[in-house]
């Protein structure tokens, strides 16, 4: 394992401290652990948004704490959900009389830990609700399974429901908007090289020089299929076709999010984006806006994901609303 770290057991703590020090006017860390809150926390006039998950997805989620997005992000160990007591501390720190909305990515661990934290908060008469993001079309959705994973589309849920909360909307209204985004956002990812969880010391899977994993999540786990490497355009087409088959985006206006998995150069992400834009237009999809960069990473995995969000007038307006966070400014 070759990493710029000091000690395996200090990775997460030092990462959070460094993140907060990178934006001291925007972020503040709670003493209880890896919990980041807005430094400019306002009074009781808006619904507070809380998200989180394992570390290793930087800038998610702490980098999206700030005006117009999250009020609090709770980080766990690398790729491991934070525990209910820490999530509860985060909820308490930002709770207002308007209530708290938790935005949870659909992983068994995240869902269970947030569920326990929400129960603890409700027991203390905090008005709290949650939504579960499941945008990954690589995984079959079914009532009888864990269902689709939550991946990069989560950032758009943060952005848009954050804007709604900033308007002073009620908890029910913010939740309705978050669920509208979830219903209209789809993603899929792939990897050309794996990542190594520092505490494990070894990569989550191994790939030959000419192999790729299609349908990966964001935790260094293998994908749904292994394939021989093909061109950027052909690879992007595989992901896009799967996304377009899940929702009919034809005639709709969309936000395109080309997300790097951590070790993919922007050069390659732009090459992907070049194809994605042309392919979408050729398929009758109207592009409203595009984001290219590292938003929801998987440590040093090389690869990318594509996310499409179908917009209506309400989502468009909220997408365009100002945001001021370390990782996203609008």
């Amino acid at each position, binding site marked *: 394992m070759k990493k710029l770290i000091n000690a395996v057991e200090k990775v997460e703590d030092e990462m959070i401290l460094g993140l907060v020090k990178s934006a001291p006017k925007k972020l503040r860390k709670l003493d209880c652990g890896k919990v980041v809150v807005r430094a400019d926390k306002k009074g009781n006039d808006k619904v507070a948004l809380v998200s989180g998950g394992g570390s290793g997805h930087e800038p998610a989620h702490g980098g999206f704490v700030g005006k117009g997005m999250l009020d609090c992000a709770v980080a766990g160990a690398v790729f491991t959900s934070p525990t209910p007591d820490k999530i509860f501390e985060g909820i308490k720190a930002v709770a207002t009389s308007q209530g708290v909305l938790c935005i949870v990515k659909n992983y068994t661990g995240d869902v269970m830990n947030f569920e326990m934290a929400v129960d603890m908060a409700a027991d203390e008469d905090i008005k709290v609700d949650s939504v579960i993001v499941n945008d990954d079309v690589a995984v079959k959705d079914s009532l009888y399974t864990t269902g689709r994973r939550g991946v990069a589309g989560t950032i758009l849920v943060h952005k848009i429901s954050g804007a709604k909360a900033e308007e002073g909307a009620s908890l029910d209204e913010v939740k309705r908007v978050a669920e509208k985004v979830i219903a209209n956002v789809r993603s899929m990812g792939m990897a050309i090289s794996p990542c190594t969880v520092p505490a494990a010391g070894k990569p*989550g899977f191994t790939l030959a020089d000419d192999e790729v994993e299609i349908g990966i999540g964001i935790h260094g786990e293998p994908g749904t299929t292994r394939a021989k490497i093909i061109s950027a355009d052909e690879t992007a087409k595989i992901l896009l076709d799967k996304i377009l088959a899940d929702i009919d985006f034809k005639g709709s206006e969309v936000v395109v999010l080309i997300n790097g998995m951590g070790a993919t150069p922007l050069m390659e992400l732009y090459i992907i984006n070049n194809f994605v834009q042309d392919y979408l237009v050729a398929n009758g999809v109207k592009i409203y806006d595009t984001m290219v960069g590292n938003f929801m990473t998987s440590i040093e995995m090389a690869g990318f994901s594509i996310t499409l969000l179908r917009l209506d007038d309400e989502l468009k307006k909220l997408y365009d609303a100002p945001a001021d966070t370390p990782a996203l400014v609008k």
Partner: protein
Amino acid sequence: MIDSKKIIAIIDAAAKKIESEKDFLTQLDNEIGDGDHGINLARGFKSVEEKLATFADKDIGAILKSVGTALVSTVGGASGPLYGTAFMKAGNVCKGKFTLTDEEFAEAFNAAVEGVKMRGKSAEGEKTMLDALCPAYRAFKGGVDGGKTLIPALEDSVNAAMQGVEYTKTIIATKGRAAYLQERSLGHQDPGATSSLYILQAALDVLKKG
């Protein structure tokens, strides 16, 4: 019959077993999950071990509840809430007791398994820890009801858990992170079922030593 001293010894043995098998559990999880099961459980059981000294004069219910709370607040992932809930639910039915009859032990075992089902919204056959725990509980309960004493009943239970772990190699995961692999999860042994087996084995080892 089992007393609070034995319970503490079992927890201590389980913690040591998880620590010694940490790398193997992580390897199993690397194949079908995200490679942190051993690391996370070992971290949790280490924090439990640090609390063992404070358990000495507590009743079994309080001990199990403390174990559950410690696991929930240190393990993270899915196994934290699942094992944490299991110990807390078992603790609930042992409230105020310093000894457990074999029937009461079965009752606590059942509460733990039901807790895992509830928290994980899961059932047997989904390639999870329940594939070890459910048959293990049935074998134990069947043994006790059929007149077996604690150790032979627990031996049956451990054997059933072992078969359950083997069974996980033959099925596709529908819950937990291995579910994302769909058919590719076939042939792999479930790490959660394996760690459940280790805890039961630790209990049997302690009781056999007398």
